């Protein structure tokens, strides 16, 4: 099987989707001749032409709002936001329209589209290029939110998102774009939205995370096994909405201990909902408070400070010890 990076898997998914369905169009800033600033759309302009691979003017509300009309008219727009920090100008279109068109029209109209958002930090970028924006949207009914952590899921989740009858925010961990290669089947397949994956099995504690921090967690889990003989179960959520409550709760009931890992600011992040879910469904199984390993309540620091801000295996390791030795 071919080995691809995560960004190559995204590129392949886009190509397959466009070959399969003539209604799929890709649009955004510099996605055409330039192939996108991360090269996610490389080669698509050449294969599918300017009508389906559209370089838009520099206006996120503009192309996201136009994509709403396209979706309503029967196209399947896949919109690229150049960086996480730049979805903000399109916030109104996302929360006031995209999330609501089906509900507002009681099913008469719908808005199937995918918004691809290179997300999260760790690539030594400029300000607004390393944001965790999931909390802006996890509380907005009508949206789906997915986050791949590896090339296989990246391709399968993107194809599932493009097939989905409802709008999907597809958060791409930039830091993983070229971090490693993995086997990815060359043909068309989907990874169902709403199902978490067990990235590592274990019975001593549960780590809930997504995106790049699946790897942070796995590294810490290996250390915990080596240093203490504790087997951590690492759950890769993959989908934040809908969320796979069953898998999460089954694991926490089994282990009785949990750590949540994200890089969003600590207060009121999506991780807070994970803790709330455990409270709702498995409180009596907890042998220690759920530990949160997150970013801090400060704006994402510029590159010289980002290593201070971002969760690392060391911090996860200390959280593991805290829930084990509680």
């Amino acid at each position, binding site marked *: 099987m071919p080995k691809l990076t995560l960004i190559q898997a995204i590129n392949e998914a886009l190509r397959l989707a466009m070959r399969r369905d003539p209604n799929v169009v890709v649009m955004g800033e510099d996605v055409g001749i330039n192939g996108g600033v991360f090269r996610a759309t490389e080669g698509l302009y050449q294969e599918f032409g300017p009508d389906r691979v559209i370089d838009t003017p520099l206006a996120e509300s503009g192309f996201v709002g*136009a994509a709403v009309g396209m979706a309503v008219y029967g196209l399947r727009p896949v919109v690229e936001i150049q960086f996480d920090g730049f979805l903000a100008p399109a916030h*109104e279109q996302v929360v006031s329209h995209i999330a609501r068109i089906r509900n507002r029209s009681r099913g008469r109209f719908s808005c199937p589209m995918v918004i691809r958002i290179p997300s999260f930090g760790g690539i030594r970028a400029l300000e607004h290029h390393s944001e965790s924006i999931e909390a802006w949207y996890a509380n907005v009914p009508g949206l789906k939110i997915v986050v791949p952590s590896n090339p296989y899921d990246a391709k399968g989740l993107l194809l599932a998102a493009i097939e989905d009858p409802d709008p999907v925010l597809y958060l791409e961990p930039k830091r993983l774009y070229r971090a490693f290669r993995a086997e990815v089947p060359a043909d068309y397949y989907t990874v169902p939205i709403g199902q978490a994956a067990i990235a590592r099995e274990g019975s001593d504690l549960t780590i809930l995370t997504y995106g790049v921090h699946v790897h942070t967690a796995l590294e810490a889990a290996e250390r915990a096994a080596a240093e203490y003989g504790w087997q951590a179960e690492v759950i890769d959520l993959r989908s934040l909405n809908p969320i796979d409550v069953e898998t999460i709760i089954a694991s926490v009931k089994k282990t009785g201990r949990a750590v949540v890992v994200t890089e969003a600011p600590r207060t009121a992040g999506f991780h807070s909902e994970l803790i709330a879910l455990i409270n709702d469904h498995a409180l009596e199984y907890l042998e220690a408070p759920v530990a949160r390993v997150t970013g801090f309540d400060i704006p994402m620091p510029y590159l010289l400070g980002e290593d201070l801000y971002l969760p690392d295996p060391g911090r996860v390791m200390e959280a593991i010890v805290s829930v084990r030795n509680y």
Partner: protein
Amino acid sequence: MATAVATGLDMEQLFPVRRVLGPDGTPVQAEPDFPPDLLKDVYRWMVYLRVFDQRCLNLSRQGRMGTFAPFSGQEACQVGSAYWLRKGKDWIFPTYRDHGAMQVMGVPAKHILRYFMGDERGSCVPEGVNAFPISIPIATQLLHAVGVAWAAKIKGEDTVAVGYAGDGGTSPGDFHEALNFASVYNTATIFFIQNNRYAISTPNTRQFKAPTIVQRALAYDIPGVRVDGQDVLAVLTVMKEAIDRARSGGGPTLVEALTFRYGPHTTPDDPKKYRTQEEVEEWQNRDAIQRLRRYLMLKGLWTEAEDEDLQQWARDQVNAAVAEAEAEPRPSVDDIFGYVYAEPTPELVRQREYLKAYLARKGRKGVGIHA
């Protein structure tokens, strides 16, 4: 004015107000050759919409409806902007005040009534009726109108999309982004701006400094036209030109219709706080319905007797629709949970069943903040 510094252009001269009939109904220029039946049909629409609008305002004041946005005074814009559109083919993207145009496009009156009574089902328009649900966030819908026309162009179809906005609707960034996208991609989008001189209490003078809205067409290198919004023949004429141009690949047009709302912004609004009775009367003297009636009578196409019948017919129509709408049950739990996604998530099912059980325990009467 400041542009004088730069160019010395007189925008009012550059974009003259298009007008066919004077306030008294006599033509001020050669009339378009619209057949008598069409003129009567247009007249019927305007009369009917005035009756509908006034009735809704009363229902709202009686608490039989929620907040309502009346368009009385803007009937020529409502009918003239949508009249030529091909049902089931072309699209409109209305604001809360464009439910007249929505009816011209084929939305049943009952749907408009249910919407303002507070029922999402009002926006579930019949198949084949291409009226998008009312957009309340100002100017956002203009981008949807661009997207639909753009998608049609990509698919090789000659669909035309009309995006509605008011004078205040020209200030949000989405107005600019929509016109720029339509211009760059040459989409068949018509931006129909009803300049009724106020955005709630904010007059044109606080909304923009330029003497016209239409001059913004120059910024995007697209055609722009100003029209007397109280003269339905003029509105029909400029819309026909814009639609024909759009359909034949000529791209977008910016239309500024000069008009006025006689009533409050919405039910709770008190217009006396920000405008004079004189101003209102001045505009009522240019009333579009009167104007067309005078013209039709002048032409011997219409009689007092016919007019009385029409008024009665309109009242009957509206009464029937109101009765129908008021007979509808309130939205159910299944209804408010049923359309968030194509398939409800497990969590939504759980929440829906919880609410049903709660209601069963308490009975809807016994629950809720309005109980």
